[in-house]
């Protein structure tokens, strides 16, 4: 998968848009309650956040297509991420 840390947009390796990451509560991974090795729970909004480090593009596409609001965690150093950053972020 590809990730742009400036726009926080996530794409497949083929460039297909998956989602733009956004957390209105600005949560951090360390703030979340561990559920298992792959997911944690946010006590503020009661959602689960999936760690993407072991997910393939196909798995992620399936997850996001079932629920576009699925929250993700991406670390820039994880092996299945290609970081892209060609954009300028324009302030709202």
């Amino acid at each position, binding site marked *: 998968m590809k*990730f*742009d*840390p*400036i726009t*926080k947009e996530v794409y497949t390796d083929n460039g297909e848009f998956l989602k733009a*990451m*956004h*957390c209105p*509560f*600005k*949560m*951090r*991974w*360390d*703030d*979340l309650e561990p559920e298992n090795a792959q997911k944690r729970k946010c*006590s*503020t909004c009661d959602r689960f*956040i999936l760690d993407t480090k072991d997910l393939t593009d196909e798995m992620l596409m399936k997850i996001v297509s079932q629920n576009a609001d699925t*929250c*993700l*965690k*991406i*670390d*820039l*150093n994880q092996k299945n*991420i*290609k*970081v*892209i*950053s*060609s*954009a*300028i*972020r*324009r*302030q*709202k």
Partner: protein
Amino acid sequence: MLFGDRNNNDRGLRVIRTARDKDSINRAARSGLRPLVKKVEPSDKIRSKFAVVQFKETGEIEVIGDYRRSGYLDADETETVIGWTFYYPHSFKSPFAAYLIPKDIKIGERVFIEDLIEDYIGASWNQGDTYRLESCEAVWNGSDFEIQYDPRTSRSDFVG
């Protein structure tokens, strides 16, 4: 309080909004908020990198931001037309902005600033890229906010 909690709004703090142009600043002032106007000054500590490779046959380009990607590109098929370059990756509406202060704010009140005007590093990557902190807690001292930025925060993960 743990340092790790400082950049979050998970404790129900009052949210301070930011206006980023003259019209929205004046609109807020007319609605009873006090704009605290500041310069928007990009920091050279915030930087992202890119390189552009071009496919020799088609002329199409690929923009890459990850040193690891270079190793996957076929040198016979591609040519680097712009080498690794760091840049400031944000663009703001105007060179000034304002925090919109409620009239009843108390000295010492801890708030959550939703859209920081100042540049602080919110995340960093071991390839040299640093990313701007969007939001942070702050304490009102009567004339300005003391940003409760944790300089020890060095993260490379994103949630959302």
